[in-house]
C-alpha cells in the first residue's frame, strides 16, 4: 500500500483506461440556456463579460484530468474558482453541461438515475465541509446510513459501522448524537460514513475548512494515516495550499473555473505555470517541498562529489540539508536507476533556506 502511494507520487498522468477517475472536457455553465451556449463563440468570453452579456456564469471551463488508482489528487483554488462545483460534477450532484466523467471504467455522464444511484451507493463517497450528518441519528447509525440505504441487514451494517468507528478513533462515542461531538469528531463521523461503504473513490469537499487549525492538522494526519491503511483513491478539494502540499500526490490549481496547472507539489513550487501560481506559492517554505532535483546543478567534472555518499533526487531539501552541510564538498545526486544526474553543495542548499528566512511570513 505504502509503495503504491509513494510510487504514484512520481507518476504524472496515466492513460484513461487504467485511471480510477478520468475527466474529459468537463463544462458547467449556470444560467437559463446553458445547453445552447456550448459551441458558440460566447464561451471564449471571460466570466465577467459573459455574465454581463447573457446572464450565464461559467462554473467549470473545459477541465480534463486523470486520477490514478490509490492517488491523492488535490484540487486547489480560492473561493469562486469552481472547485466545489467540479467535485459535484464528478458524481453528478450537479449535472455537467458537457464532457465525460469515467469512474472506475464506467461513464457516469450517460447514466440513468438508477445506475447513477447504484454508483453513489457502491463506488464513490463524499465528505463535506459542513459534515451533513443527520442530527436525529446516533453516531453509529449515521455511519451505517449508506449501508442502510443500499438495503443491508441491521446486524451486518452495525458490525461494519463499528469497524469504521474504531478505524477513525471514535470508539466509545457510538451512541452519542452528532450535536454532542466537537467539530473535529463530527468530521470523523463523516469520514467513517464515507469509508463504510468501501467505495473505490473518496471525495472530500473542503472537509477541514470549518475546523480549528490544530484540529485541522490532526485531521490531515488522520487522512494520511487512513490513506496508508486503506489505500483509497482520493479527490480532495481545498483552498489551503499547505494542506494541498501536505496531502497531495498531485495538485490541480483552478482559477475562474479553469485549470491553471497540474503537477506534483515540487513541480508546482519549482516551476509555477504563471504569475498567479507564483504569487500563490511565494510564501511556501520551499525547503519543505522542493527536492534536490530542483536545486542541483550539472556536475562540473566527472569526479566532483565523489567523496560523499550520494543522495536520491527525490530527497526534500530540508531533509538533505544536514548531510550536504556536513560533507566537505559537493554531494552527488542520483536518480532512481543510480545514475548521477547532478551535484549540490552548501551554497545550493542555503539559497533555498535563506530566501525563506528573509520572508518571515512563510511561517504559517
Amino acid at each position, binding site marked *: 500500500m505504502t509503495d503504491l502511494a509513494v510510487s504514484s507520487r512520481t507518476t504524472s498522468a496515466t492513460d484513461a483506461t487504467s485511471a480510477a477517475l478520468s475527466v474529459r472536457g468537463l463544462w458547467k455553465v449556470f444560467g437559463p440556456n446553458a445547453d445552447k451556449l456550448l459551441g458558440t463563440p460566447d464561451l471564449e468570453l471571460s466570466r465577467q463579460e459573459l455574465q454581463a452579456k447573457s446572464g450565464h456564469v461559467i462554473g467549470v471551463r473545459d477541465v480534463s484530468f486523470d486520477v490514478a488508482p490509490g492517488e491523492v489528487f488535490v484540487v486547489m483554488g480560492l473561493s469562486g474558482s469552481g472547485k466545489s462545483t467540479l467535485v459535484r460534477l464528478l458524481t453528478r450532484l450537479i449535472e455537467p453541461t458537457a464532457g465525460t466523467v469515467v469512474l472506475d471504467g464506467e461513464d457516469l455522464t450517460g447514466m440513468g438515475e438508477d445506475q447513477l444511484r447504484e454508483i453513489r451507493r457502491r463506488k464513490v463517497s463524499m465528505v463535506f465541509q459542513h459534515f451533513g450528518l443527520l442530527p436525529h441519528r446516533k453516531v453509529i447509525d449515521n455511519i451505517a446510513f449508506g449501508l442502510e*440505504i443500499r438495503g443491508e441487514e441491521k446486524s451486518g451494517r452495525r458490525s461494519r459501522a463499528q469497524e469504521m468507528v474504531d478505524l477513525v478513533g471514535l470508539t466509545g462515542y457510538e451512541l452519542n448524537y452528532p450535536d454532542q461531538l466537537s467539530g473535529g469528531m463530527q468530521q470523523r463521523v463523516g469520514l467513517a*460514513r464515507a469509508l463504510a461503504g468501501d467505495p473505490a473513490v473518496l471525495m472530500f469537499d473542503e472537509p477541514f475548512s470549518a475546523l480549528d487549525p490544530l484540529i485541522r492538522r490532526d485531521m490531515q494526519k488522520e487522512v494520511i494515516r487512513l490513506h496508508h491503511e486503506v489505500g483509497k483513491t482520493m479527490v480532495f478539494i481545498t483552498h489551503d495550499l499547505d494542506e494541498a502540499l501536505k496531502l497531495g500526490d498531485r495538485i490541480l490549481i483552478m482559477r475562474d473555473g479553469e485549470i491553471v496547472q497540474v503537477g506534483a507539489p515540487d513541480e508546482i513550487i519549482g516551476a509555477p505555470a504563471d504569475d498567479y501560481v507564483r504569487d500563490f506559492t511565494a510564501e511556501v517554505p520551499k525547503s519543505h517541498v522542493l527536492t534536490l532535483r530542483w536545486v542541483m546543478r550539472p556536475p562540473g567534472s566527472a569526479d566532483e562529489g565523489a567523496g560523499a555518499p550520494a543522495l536520491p533526487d527525490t530527497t526534500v531539501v530540508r531533509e538533505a540539508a544536514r548531510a550536504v552541510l556536513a560533507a566537505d564538498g559537493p554531494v552527488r545526486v542520483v536518480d532512481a536507476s543510480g545514475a548521477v544526474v547532478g551535484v549540490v553543495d552548501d551554497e545550493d542548499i542555503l539559497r533555498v533556506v535563506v530566501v525563506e528566512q528573509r520572508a518571515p511570513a512563510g511561517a504559517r
Partner: protein
Amino acid sequence: MTTTLEPARPAPTKEAQPVAERATSRRTGRKLLAVLALWVLAWATLRGRQTLELANADTTGLHDWFNDVRDRVQLLGQDNWFFHGVLGTIASGLDTFVGVLQEHLSSVTPGDWLGWFGVLLLAAWVTYALAGLRSTLLVTVVLLFLGLAGLWTDGIDTLIVTIVAVVICMVVGLPLGIAMSRSRRTSAVVTPVLDAMQTMPSFAYLTPIALFFGIGPACAIVLTLVYALPPLVRITEHGLNSVAENTVEAGRSLGVTKGQLLRQVQLPMAKRTIVVGINQCTMAALSMATIAALVNGPGLGKPVIAALQTLNVGAAAVAGLGIVLIAIMLDRTTTAASERSSPAGQRVAAVGSPGIFGGRTLVLEKLPRWATEEGGRGTDRRFLTPSGRRLVLAVLLLPVLVGAYYSTRYLQLSQFPDLSGVPVLGELTAGPLGGHINDLTNAVVDAISGVTNGFKDLVTAVMLNPLQSLMSDLPWWVMALVLLAVAFLLGGWRPAVVTLVCEAVVLGTGLWYDAMVTLTMTLVATVIVMLVAVVLGVAMGRGRRADTVIRPFLDGFQTIPAFVYLVPALALFAATRFTAIMAAVAYAVPIATKLVADGVRGVSPATVEAARSTGITRWQMISKVQLPMAREALVLATNQGLLYVLSMVVIGGMVGGGSLGYLIVQGFVQGQLFGKGLAAGIAITALGIMLDRIARHAAARFGR
C-alpha cells in the same frame, strides 16, 4: 379561568438532555401501547357503565345555579355599581355608538348622513388614499355586489362592527405592544393573558361575555376585541423587538433618549410589521364579528345562521359569499397599505404573511426566499409620485363630497335600487343568485356524492365510531386515568397535573360525556389534518413548483372567516358530526401545511446533499432525512392543528356537530339551558387548555 400559559419547558443541560430523551422516546412508545391495551380491555369489560351521559334537556345543579346567577346579574344590572355603573355604561355606550353608525350608514332611509352612493364614494376615496388604485377598484366592486345581492345593510353592519373593533384594538393594542417591547415586566405580565385569550376557543367565551354585556352590538364588539387584540399586540411587540440590535446600538451610541429611539428608530423600522399586525387584527375581527351574530351582533352572520339552521345552503352561500368578499377586500386593502408603508425598493423579508390569523399561538410565517424576492420585484409599480397622488386625492375630494351630499337627497342614491328586473345584473340579486348557487351545489354534490359519502362512511365507520365508543362509552374514571397516563407519558408531570385539574373541571360541569365526544371529533379531525398537511407540506417543502401552486390556495383559505367553512361542509356532508369535522379540517389544514412545509424546507441543504451523495432514493430521502429532521415543525403543526380544530369542531355544533358546541348554541336559544351552555363553554376551555399543555410539553420533549 385564568391560567398561566407560559411554556414551562424544562431546561436541563444541553449535553445530557438529548441522549436521555431520545432513549426514552422508544420506551414511551411501548408504555403508550400498554396504556392502549389496558384501555381497550377496560372498555370491553366495563362498556356502557358510569358514562355520565346527560340527555339534551337535562340539567345539573350547577347548570341551574348558573341560571340563578344569570337572573341575579340581570337584576343587579339595574342598580349595582359594577354591573350597572361600569359594564352597563360601557355596553350602552357601545350599543348607542354602533346604533348611530348603523342608522346613518347602513340603513336605507333618506335623510341620514349618507346613502349607499355616498358610502361607496367615501370608501373608495379613503381606500385610494391608504392603499392605491387596485384596492379601490376591489372595494367598489365588492360594495356594489353587496348592494345588488341585497346584503347592503348587513354587509355595512359587519364592516361597522369590524372597523369599530379594529379602531379600539389599535387604540389599546399599539400602546400596549410598545409598552411590552420596552419593559420586560409588562411583557411578562401581559403575555400569559394574551396566551389565555388565544388558547380559549372563541365559542367558549360567548356565553359569559353575553352575560355581562347583554346580547347585542356591544357584546359583539367586546367578543371581537378579545379575539382580535392578541395578534396586534404580539406583532407590534415582535416588530419593535426585532429591529436589528446593531441599529439600536448605533442609535444609543449617538446618545438618543428612549423616546427618540422609539420614534426615530424603532417605530419607522417596525412600521411594516405593525401594519401586518393590523391586517391580522382586521381579519380576526371580521371572523369573530360574523360569529357574534349568535349573540345578536349585527351583520352578515345573521343570515348565515338563519340559513344554516334551516339547512338552506343557497341562502347561506349568498351571505357567506358576501363575507368572503368582504374578507378579500379587507385583506387586500390592508396588505396593499402595508406594502405602501415600506419604502420603495426596500422590502423587508416578510415576517408574517397576511392571512395567518385566527389567533392561536402566534406563528409568524417564514416565506421561502424566492417568494419574497420575486414578490419584491413585481408588485411595486406605482403610477404616480406621492405628491401627484396627493393632488389627485385633493381634486377628487370635491366630487366625492358632492356625491355624498346628493346621496342623502335622492332615493335612488340613498337606497340601493332593486335591480332584480334588469337582465344580467338581476341574476346577481339575492333570490336568483341563491337559486343558482343551490343548482350549482346540487349538481356538484350529485356528481361527487358517491365519493364524499363513501369517504364520510369510511371515516365514520373506521375511525369516528370506534374511537367515540372507546372514549365515551366507558366509565368516566377509566377515561380520566387514560388521559392522565397519556399526558404523563408524553409531557411529564406538569401537563399531568394540568390534565387532572382540567378533568376535575369537566367533571364538575356535568358534561363529561359530551366533552369526550367533542374530544373524539377533535382527535379524528386532527389526524386527518396531519395526514393532509404532511402530504402537501412535504411536496411544498421539496419543490418550488408545488409551493407555487399550493400556497395561494392556502392563503385564500386562511382569509376566509371560520364561520363560512360550515356552508360548503354542510352542502357536501349534510348535518352530521362529520360535517363539523370536515369544516374543522378545512380550517386547520392551511396553517398545519405551511408549518410542515416550512420545516421540510428548513432541513439543512448540506445534509440533503450529503444524503444525495450516498445514492438515496426519493422516498428514503423523505422518510429517513427530511421528515425526521422536520420533527419540530411536525410537532408544532400538530399543536396548532389541535387548537384550530377544537375551536372549529365546537362551532360545528351548529350544523349537526352535536355535543358541547350544540349546547352552547342551545344556551342562547332556550333560557332554561343557559346554565348548561355556560358550563359547556367552561368544559371547552378546560379541554383546550389540556390539549395545549400536553402538546406543548410533548413538543418540548420530543420536538427537538
